[in-house]
């Protein structure tokens, strides 16, 4: 029995003979491009930030519970694992922040030209690095 999906895949040549239409390459064999990679990164960082919200909730609940609980939360954030998580969190946050603004600009119809979109991708990456470094300079200066 033929697959129903054939109805969408099989087309007709001008002489009337049937032809299987070419499929666009699947994700795994598609060459990564600036546009696709930066867009997927926006999603990945968004998921990471959602998981990272757990840390913020813990921080707030601990502060509301009392000094002892807060010291425990702060101790974890200050530990090597906590600092690595916080570094990843700031990196993801700034990427999603600038990547999100880029998506908003696309939403209003700006920046679709390939050159412009490559340039804004570079700006997003550069701004992410700069803001992550600034965040850590401020954070460490206050903390230490």
């Amino acid at each position: 029995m033929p697959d129903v999906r054939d109805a969408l895949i099989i087309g007709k040549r001008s002489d009337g003979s049937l032809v299987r239409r070419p499929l666009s390459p699947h994700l795994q064999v598609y060459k990564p491009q600036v546009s696709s990679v930066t867009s997927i990164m926006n999603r990945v960082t968004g998921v990471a930030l959602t998981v990272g919200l757990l840390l913020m909730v813990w921080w707030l609940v601990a502060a509301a519970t009392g000094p002892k609980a807060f010291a425990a939360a702060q101790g974890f954030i200050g530990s090597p694992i906590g600092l690595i998580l916080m570094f990843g969190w700031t990196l993801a946050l700034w990427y999603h922040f600038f990547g999100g603004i880029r998506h908003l600009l696309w939403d209003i119809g700006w920046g679709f030209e390939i050159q412009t979109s490559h340039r804004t991708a570079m700006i997003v990456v550069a701004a992410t690095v700069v803001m992550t470094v600034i965040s850590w300079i401020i954070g460490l200066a206050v903390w230490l």
Partner: protein
Amino acid sequence: MAQNDKLSVTMRQSALGRARGLGAAKSGVHHWWAERVTSVALIPLTLWFVFSVLSLAGHPQADIAHWVSQPIVAVLLLAFIIASFHHAQLGMQMVLEDYLHDEGQRLIWMMVMKAIIWLMGLAAVLSVLKLAI
């Protein structure tokens, strides 16, 4: 252009269906629009939150409690929490819709995800209220 004259589009929607503007998802553009609105709101709120928290790095609980006890801080914190959790929930919904193809699995994971985000958001809101009031 001449051959395009023969092409036509058949509208399979009723006039009422078109007026409602709801597609297969039955919710129109609400999800998409809510994601944009929360993202715009989160631009200033995130900047404020991140630099406020950074300026409190390593400070004891009493300093945090004093900071949150200011009404403006409490209001902005609540706005940040509600906007970010709503935004997270909308984004995670899209991810589940894209990658979970089994209707039943998608339904279950959607509820689990929303339950976790709601509970986390409520815990965050309660904490702010407790410190602020």
